[in-house]
């Protein structure tokens, strides 16, 4: 039997004395025994072989039956191919016209009271052509658009975004009332969420969130020195003033008064602000349930951008915090480190994505003009505008983009063992870096592969020393975990 080794489908991760096999075609993990270890080792050095040759080569150590069994198992996992794979059809893989919409982001305000230096919106004060505030007519049309396109989804999500969405709180109230009424009529549950900089929170607003069970994310970068470095107000005289002192009492009030759902902090990691464990300590100390870290998107040469050396530091920080996560997990305590929890969820489920995220598929963004964009990061980007809530969606263009962005159409990703978890990465990041959203984010590959390997080690350790922890503490209630696992 001719055997061709497919390295992209087999990745070995050392775990203590043992080796974990990642069968990347299905993202399934296996603990290897000495036979499979030896067969994989041989295959790596001899990509083209036959069963007879491998049997002969390993004859002193393993019986022909053992080798044959292992080879059969490898064939099943597509680690060996016995014949040339059939060429895959490239286009089309998805038809968006028949894909139900689950989430709609509303850019209710196209302005922000902060002037963070790293903001991905093109201009700091006002972003692109759309009006400063979305009006009621456009908001209502957008909600109708979501319900029309929701298909058989029993639950839909409205996400309020800006600028700073709370600059248009009045509209948010109206939208929530209308959407709840509409949801009642169609028998669909409506969930609301909001990302905010937190500086405009009041008790009235907090109570409103409580009443409608908002999912809340507050952008906050850590302790005062780190937060104020780049999250600042711009005064009339053109001076920058940190926002921490104004934000802190409001965040404390929120975390004390709001208990409908866990509140999450979102940290933008920038150059010089990579003290991950310190940031986590501070934010979890304030009472945030989870803290998620996002490395900043920066064009080459931006002062806040992360260079490879900075990314190494971020990774070291992630691992440091990961140690704490494990220690506490062994005592049945949960650590709200979003990045690791998400990764553990993916590793447990064996996530195998065809697209990096749901943008354009189950999620779309609407700005104040009613223009529809791929996601909340793209408003104002003509290239990724796909119609208007009043005139309809441009299916052909959206299909063309998504089919191009499908992981099977990213040749570099096809050789990578984490393609099922990563899918090539953020469209907006790729658009900023390379001018094309459908390209893979090659500048993060090493980071993500090392982080995934680390996550596999953590997963194995938890499964071994505290079985059930991942299922009970990590998966339960996570929106990103497959429904059957939560």
């Amino acid at each position, binding site marked *: 039997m001719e055997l061709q080794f497919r390295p992209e489908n087999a990745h070995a991760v050392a775990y203590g004395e043992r080796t974990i096999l990642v069968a990347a075609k299905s993202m399934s*993990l*296996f603990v290897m025994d000495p036979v499979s270890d030896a067969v994989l080792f041989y295959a790596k050095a001899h990509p083209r072989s036959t069963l007879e040759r491998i049997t002969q080569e390993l004859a002193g150590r393993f019986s022909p039956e*053992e080798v044959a069994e*292992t080879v059969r198992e490898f064939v099943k996992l597509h680690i060996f191919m016995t014949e040339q794979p059939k060429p895959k059809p490239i286009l089309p893989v998805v038809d968006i016209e028949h894909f139900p919409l689950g989430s709609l982001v509303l850019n209710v305000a196209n302005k922000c009271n902060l002037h963070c230096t790293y903001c991905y919106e093109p201009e700091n004060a006002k972003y692109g052509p759309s009006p400063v505030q979305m009006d009621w007519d456009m908001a209502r049309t957008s909600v109708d658009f979501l319900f029309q396109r929701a298909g058989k989804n029993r639950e839909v999500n409205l996400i309020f975004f800006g600028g700073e969405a709370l600059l248009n709180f009045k509209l948010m109230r109206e939208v929530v009332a209308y959407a709840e009424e509409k949801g009642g009529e169609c028998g669909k549950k409506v969930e609301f969420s909001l990302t905010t900089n937190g500086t405009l929170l009041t008790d009235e607003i907090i109570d409103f969130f409580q009443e409608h069970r908002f999912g809340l994310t507050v952008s906050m970068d850590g302790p005062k020195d780190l937060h104020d470095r780049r999250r600042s107000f711009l005064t009339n005289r053109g001076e920058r003033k940190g926002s921490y002192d104004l934000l802190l009492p409001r965040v404390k009030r929120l975390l004390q008064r709001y208990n409908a759902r866990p509140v999450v902090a979102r940290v933008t990691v920038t150059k010089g602000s990579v003290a991950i464990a310190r940031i986590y300590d501070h934010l979890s100390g304030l009472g945030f349930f989870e803290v998620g870290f996002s490395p900043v998107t920066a064009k080459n040469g931006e002062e806040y951008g992360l260079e490879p050396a900075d990314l190494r530091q971020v990774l070291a920080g992630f691992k440091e915090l990961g140690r704490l996560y494990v220690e506490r997990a062994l005592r049945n305590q949960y650590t709200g480190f979003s990045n690791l929890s998400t990764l553990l969820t993916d590793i447990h489920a*064996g996530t195998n994505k065809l697209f990096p995220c749901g943008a354009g598929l189950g999620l779309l963004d609407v700005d104040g003009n009613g223009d529809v964009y791929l996601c909340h990061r793209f408003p104002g980007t003509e290239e990724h505008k796909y119609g208007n809530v009043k005139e309809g969606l441009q299916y052909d263009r959206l299909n063309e983009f998504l089919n191009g962005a499908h992981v099977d159409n990213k040749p570099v990703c096809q050789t990578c063992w984490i393609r099922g978890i990563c899918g090539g990465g953020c469209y907006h990041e790729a658009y900023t870096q390379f001018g094309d959203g459908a390209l893979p984010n090659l500048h993060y590959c090493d980071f993500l592969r090392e982080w995934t390997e680390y996550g596999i080690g953590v997963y194995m350790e938890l499964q071994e020393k505290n079985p059930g922890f991942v299922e009970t503490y990590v998966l339960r209630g996570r929106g990103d975990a497959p429904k059957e696992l939560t």
Partner: protein
Amino acid sequence: MKHLKAANHKAEMVETAQAAQEDVVGMAMPSGCTTIFNPGWEANMWGGTNGMCAPMEADLLSCANVCWWPAQVPDSLQSSPEWAKACSGMNQEDWKNFEVVFPKVD
């Protein structure tokens, strides 16, 4: 699997799916019933129906392959060993001489 021990949820799913697949593969025949020694159709050599094509429940599996409608063929070992005697060979005309065999009723 024997040499790889499932370590995450997906691996368990893969194993379950493959175990289910092998059940079906086990029924595959090289190229029809004629290449396998089959000790009769309606009854096996002990007079029972275990493992035979003829019981309807076995038909369902056998018929998935190239071997089909075994129930039309007489039990050539137990009950009607002579049923094909009139045929000298298997040329195109011979088949018409096959005897029609009815169950004996006491």
